[in-house]
């Protein structure tokens, strides 16, 4: 393998990228642009629960109870029904997450010192929202009891208290947690551009021209890969600038470590792309494969929102087969925990292994294909 010929391919690729502004945007600027778009959608800390209520008691105590449930902005009474039959359609259409039924005689029972039954019907289709609604309603109902109690006993009512601390992100702000993780998703774009560049050369027939020169297959692939990894690192820096300057996410680690591991991530993704390129004849097939294998699963399996499950081997393997799962972790650790390579040896080595393995296999297959 000749360094000079490989360098020539790198130069040719960089020329291609810089000559066409659209290509330049795709490779260098699109991650920053997408991060900007996605971060807004993914970072809200408010959870809203909509409640429908049927108050059959109509007393000031029952109204007081309802008011105490909805005194915070996060739980709001959006529908007050006058009969039981009205409630269900609202639950079916999703206007409300839960409905609450206060039976007749609610106030009478409480003043007689007996517990009054209140029923909540929760929409379980979204277990996260449903669980939240059920939890809040129950907690606030018992808080209401304590609040109205005239029989408050002195002293040891609450022998144990909890104090909590959120480390690395003291305000528990989801923006700070999401932006570093989203970087892993948007940095799929340089890989996309690399695979397209490989496929385009096959599709338009210019690969044949190149192969008629003394250039070897491995030099061709390596040169292209180097050019796109280089551009990928530039795009990573641009996206980091958006994260740090626009979204004010603290960057506590070292830039050199981050870029080294980003290069590692690109190597793993682009190595896989080389294998794909051997089998693929057209750019449209490349797009399908990257969309279906990398992009869409990365949203769900990479630990972006909830951590990766380790409960079953199947799910763990599926998740860790995706390079983005490793980079989600790396990105969060370097940004928020500020730790270095010694803590990230495992994901770094896995990515490097994936990248080298895929590249060796890809180059072998490529040589066979052009031979």
């Amino acid at each position, binding site marked *: 393998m000749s360094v000079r010929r490989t360098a020539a391919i790198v130069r040719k690729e960089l020329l291609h990228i810089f000559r066409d502004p*659209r290509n330049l945007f795709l490779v260098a600027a699109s991650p920053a*642009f997408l991060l900007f*778009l996605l971060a807004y959608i*993914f970072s*809200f800390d408010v959870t809203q629960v909509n409640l429908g209520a049927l108050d059959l008691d109509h007393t000031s105590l029952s109204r007081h109870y309802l008011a105490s449930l909805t005194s915070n902005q996060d739980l709001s009474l959006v529908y007050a029904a006058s009969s039981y039959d009205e409630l269900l359609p609202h639950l*079916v*259409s999703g206007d409300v997450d839960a409905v609450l039924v206060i039976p007749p005689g609610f106030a009478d029972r409480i003043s007689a010192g007996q*517990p009054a039954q*209140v*029923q909540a*019907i929760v929409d379980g289709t*979204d*277990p*996260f929202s*449903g669980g939240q609604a*059920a939890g809040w309603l129950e907690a606030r*109902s*018992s808080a209401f*009891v304590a609040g109205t109690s005239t029989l408050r006993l002195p*002293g*040891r009512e609450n*022998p*144990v*208290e*909890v104090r*909590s*601390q959120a*480390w*690395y*992100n*003291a305000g*528990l*702000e989801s923006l700070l*947690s999401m932006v570093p993780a989203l970087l892993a*998703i*948007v940095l799929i774009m340089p890989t*996309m551009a690399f695979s*397209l560049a490989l496929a*385009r050369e096959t599709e338009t027939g210019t690969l044949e021209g190149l192969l008629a020169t003394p250039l070897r297959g491995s030099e061709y692939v390596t040169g292209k890969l180097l050019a796109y990894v280089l551009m990928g690192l530039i795009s990573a820096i641009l996206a980091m600038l958006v994260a740090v300057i626009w979204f004010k996410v603290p960057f506590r680690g070292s830039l050199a470590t981050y870029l080294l591991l980003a290069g590692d991530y690109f190597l793993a993704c682009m190595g896989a792309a080389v294998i794909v390129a051997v089998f693929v004849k*057209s*750019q*449209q*097939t490349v*797009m*399908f*494969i990257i*969309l*279906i294998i990398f*992009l869409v*699963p990365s949203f*769900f*399996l990479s630990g972006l929102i*909830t*951590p990766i499950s380790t*409960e079953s081997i199947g799910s763990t393997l*599926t*998740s860790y087969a995706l390079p983005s799962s490793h980079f989600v*972790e790396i990105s969060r*650790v370097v940004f928020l925990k500020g730790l270095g390579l010694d*803590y990230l040896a495992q994901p770094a080595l896995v990515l490097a292994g994936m990248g080298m393995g895929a590249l060796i296999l890809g180059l072998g297959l490529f040589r066979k294909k052009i031979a």
Partner: protein
Amino acid sequence: MFNRIGNLIIKELIQLGRDRLLTAFIVLAPALQLILMAQSIEQGINEQPMAVLDLDRSRLSRQLTTALDNSEELRAQFYIQSMDHAHRLLDEGRARSAVIIPAGFAEGVESARAPQQILVVADATNTMAASIAINAAAGVVGRFSSDLARSHGQVTPEFIDFRTKVRFNPTMDIRNFSIPAQVGFIIYQITLAVAALGLARERELGTLEQLMVTPLRRFELALGKGLPAIAIGWLNFGVVWVISLTVFQVPMNGSALLLSILTLLFVVTVVSWGLVISAISRTQQQAILFVFIQAMTDVAFSGFLVPVKNMPNFLQTISRIVPLQHYLVIIRSVMLKGAGLGSLVPQVVALVGLAFFMGLVALFSVARRVE
């Protein structure tokens, strides 16, 4: 006219069939993707590994540790001796939270001086996991505390007997929530990708000019390109939907006919978006870039990863033009809640409007771009 459109459709299908890899992908990938994604859906929000620093080492502190370990969300995995060790475990990400029971805890509770404080520390690089751990620990300690108060002869008077009933998904099974959504994502990505490339590819390869010298009219061209994509999307729906019912046992409580018709409407909308992308891009690469930006924002806006009602108002307004968002509500409501047309009026109106509007834009833009 029908003859000409028919011929074009046949041409499209032959062309697709010639790329074996692409055909295999379009046919097999959806089913494979659903099976892989569904495996990994049990995400790691339960049984999160926790470190316990018990400085009291009393019977009471062990009881508290057991109570924390017994909760669904937490698992006491590391019993440690020092705060430094807790710090290291959280840094490495091996524990996601740590609970610290101070020395003199049991004695303090017995002597009933001030309330005893338990410290819970959580790794907030992932805010969702951290909030779940903190809330779970607070809940366990709260119950532990009131049990203690009760056993010391304090009777907390109970005023409200609060009962919760969960409808539509009584066990709050997360699969019943995610799998219908995955069905939506899968048909969305395939349909958009198939529709977006047709014209751009012909233009880039120069075959569009040949088509234009035939008697084919421009709207016939749009229909001939759109109909195969619609058919592919709809067939894919059939396959993944049947898998979700048979392999994953997702309940189907509503009308299959209604769901199929509304799916067709959704597919038409997505194909129209795709045709517009195809018409306005000059090269395949540009079309692919648009598809990726579109896919990322649509997945983000879909309401699956972040509920739409938690977004600020201006983003909620934007999300109304995202067909995927309406479709996910439809498929979830029909399958789990058995919703009929009556309770889906807003979503159906939105989809009909979007299909009609985007369809017109697609016809118009294809016609204009071809000139």
